[in-house]
């Protein structure tokens, strides 16, 4: 019988997972994985946060808990505490009852639900032509999330200045000025992925001014809160500033990295509306979208986070765990920069310590990247992005020397 799927083509694999795959298959004992964005200890091991282990025991011991369905929008105590993390305890928007949330499957799920809502209800009904702007470069899945939600026009906004290895502020502001009114902009709340380059406070204020004036929609992607500087409040500055400017906005939050709960898919779409009535109607439509996507979200991870955030001691312990991770990343940054400078590797390397969060945009070109992968078994993204968490005190010399070699030998 002729197969109905005879014409289905083989799709190319998702790049970041291919890097890890290739790493796994490499027999070189010196191999280093600087690809996918997951935290590693100084032993190069995944790290289940001590507070998470503690809370898991609490949950297991609680006989009153079961595996029943969560409500469509998720676990209420998770949603509210997660939104508080982003907006702050003292958030006037929360006090005014105009903040709601949808528990989603990771940051991806939160972006997805937000995108689906915007396509249906923003800027008219089912307006698939509303431009969606994502930074150049950005997390490689942003594009697909919005395209698959039905948006026909997903465009880049200038962001990374490759020459100066920093933020292209004038390009960014220029794109904001020239974007059609009501365009949607996906902003990285902190620890920009992949560049690690964030706007300063003053720069954020400038961005906000243009966005308000030109009626552009604010969609924050917050995947690294706490992870960037080690301080939750500091990392949420941009999100909270935009609130003071009166924006209605979405903020897709992920607890994959800052809680180390990658595979439990813990995310939250925080919605800031003008008033409670608008919020109510928005949430009712969010339910419709969730119902045809996954019906209701998974309970385990959300429960873990909710228990932690709602208990002062556990919350404090969590913040310490987050700081531990952020501090290790900061020390690896300092170390890598110092070693490259000591080796007198051509070029400037201050961007290694100026950049923030898990990733660094090294500035290595594709040939140099290929050299590192093929000759040195050091795995990184073709863009030159490295995951700082892949560095350890044991491999950093090898990595620094290898980078040096690639810069010197490969054009």
């Amino acid at each position: 019988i002729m197969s109905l799927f005879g014409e289905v083509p083989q799709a190319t694999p998702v790049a970041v997972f291919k890097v890890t795959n290739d790493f796994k298959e490499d027999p070189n004992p010196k191999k280093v994985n600087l690809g996918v964005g997951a935290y590693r200890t100084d032993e190069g091991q995944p790290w289940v946060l001590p507070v998470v282990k503690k809370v898991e025991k609490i949950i297991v011991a609680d006989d009153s808990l079961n595996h029943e369905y969560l409500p469509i929008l998720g676990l209420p105590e998770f949603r509210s505490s997660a939104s508080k993390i982003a907006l702050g305890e003292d958030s006037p928007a929360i006090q005014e009852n105009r903040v709601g949330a949808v528990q989603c499957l990771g940051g991806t799920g939160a972006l997805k639900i937000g995108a689906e809502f915007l396509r249906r209800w923003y800027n008219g009904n089912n307006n698939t032509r509303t431009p969606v702007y994502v930074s150049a470069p950005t997390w490689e899945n942003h594009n697909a999330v919005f395209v698959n939600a039905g948006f026909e026009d997903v465009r880049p906004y200038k962001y990374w200045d490759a020459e100066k290895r920093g933020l292209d502020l004038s390009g960014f502001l220029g794109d904001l000025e020239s974007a059609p009114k009501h365009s949607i902009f996906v902003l990285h709340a902190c620890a920009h992925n992949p560049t690690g380059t964030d706007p300063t406070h003053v720069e954020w204020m400038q961005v906000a001014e243009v966005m308000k004036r030109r009626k552009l929609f604010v969609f924050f992607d917050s995947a690294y809160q706490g992870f960037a500087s080690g301080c939750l409040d500091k990392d949420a500055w941009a999100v909270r500033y935009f609130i003071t400017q009166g924006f209605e906005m979405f903020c897709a939050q992920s607890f994959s990295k800052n809680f180390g709960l990658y595979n439990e898919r813990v995310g939250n779409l925080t919605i800031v509306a003008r008033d409670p009535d608008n919020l109510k109607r928005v949430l009712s439509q969010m339910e419709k979208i969730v119902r045809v996507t996954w019906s209701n979200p998974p309970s385990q991870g959300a429960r873990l986070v909710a228990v932690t955030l709602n208990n002062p001691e556990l919350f404090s312990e969590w913040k310490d765990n987050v700081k531990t991770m952020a501090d290790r990343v900061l020390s690896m940054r300092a170390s890598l920069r110092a070693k490259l400078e000591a080796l007198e590797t051509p070029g400037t390397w201050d961007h290694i310590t100026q950049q923030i969060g898990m990733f660094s945009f090294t500035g290595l070109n594709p040939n140099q990247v290929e050299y590192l992968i093929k000759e040195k078994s050091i795995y990184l993204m073709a863009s030159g992005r490295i995951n700082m968490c892949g560095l350890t005190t044991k491999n950093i010399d090898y990595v620094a020397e290898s980078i040096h070699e690639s810069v010197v030998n490969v054009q």
Partner: protein
Amino acid sequence: SPRRHPSPYRLCLGISISLPACFSSWWSEVQMGPPDPILGVSEAYKRDTNPKKINLGVGAYRDDQGKPFVLSCVRKAEAQIAAKKLDKEYLAIGGLGDFNKACAKLALGDDNEVIKSGRNITVQTISGTGSLRIGANFLSRFHTEAREVYLPTPSWGNHTPIFRDAGMQLKAYTYYDPKTCGFDFQGALNDISKIPAKSVIMLHACAHNPTGVDPRPEQWKEIAELVKKRNLLVFFDMAYQGFASGDIDRDAWAVRYFIEQGHNILLSQSFAKNMGLYGERVGGFTVVCKDAEEAKRVESQLKILIRPIYSNPPMNGARIAATILNTPDLYKEWLGEVHGMANRIITMRELLVANLKKEGSTKNWQHVIDQIGMFCFTGLKPEQVERLTKEFSVYMTKDGRISMAGVTSGNVGYLAQGIHSVTK
């Protein structure tokens, strides 16, 4: 002491950040969405203060005390998993391999030629809904020759919006006969014989939701033959394997028969009910392909579909399910517990009918016993349902469907009273 980072809210120093009156909302035109018909029932039930209230709405199993039931094999699996101290690294896009293999084996049988030849692709999904959604998206993108999906009348309420949202068109075929509260076999065959070639036909593998009416094996055989003659693409929804008859293999009979007959089916599975893993969102989506090479291509495309929705699925529930399915004594215990759940439901069916007769009802309630699985299509009309809810605080969906799992030896008498009262 560490310097606290100044909150941007301080910038406004006591000035209330109320938005100017001229600032309108982006969402002024967003309409209030109607409450979900099924889940809305539970919410209404929660609000009711009547101590005799009964929730026969959503299909979640309850024990004879009306309490949620966490299976013993699940608790054991959880303990085993906890002892292993596993990390929380991302799963692959297609999910946990151990789960996927076991999931396929459960549906198709250990020795199935499909599995042996590697011509199925099975991915972990967000329970049954997530599975159907991935399936719908896959059809929408790749099954371009036909856009119609034929659902039985009636079908699970969420089937229609899922397929519609994915861009498919919904059509129907006769299924339930309200006169007999049973299967309208001839009506189904008549309608199926007219379905255009290559259309998708959705079949409930067992324990049809909402009617509880399943074809008999000889009827399945005829349907399979007709479907093959019409060259239709079969999509099985199997959300209740084990729950219908209490026997895993018996409940998968139709799925396995169709495959044997050469249908390369799509299959959605859920472990919400049969393992009681509702909120953990455990499911599988399978495409039976022509050969292993095609399965690889299809797999690559499923990953492309999944990634922009949720990247990769949640670990917890899949790990529990995999542990149960792959550990012989846990698997055996699970079979026993599923059998137990199915049996309690069968007992409640019998009790309900007995109580209705005791109340003096002269109506024919045989269908309550003949129907199978979690749900019973009582035959009650919307007005009767409304009275049952208003006067007796019995919560169910307007179509007359009740979840037998919500019936207990403690409330069956009261329920019979109510049903008799609104139908006499």
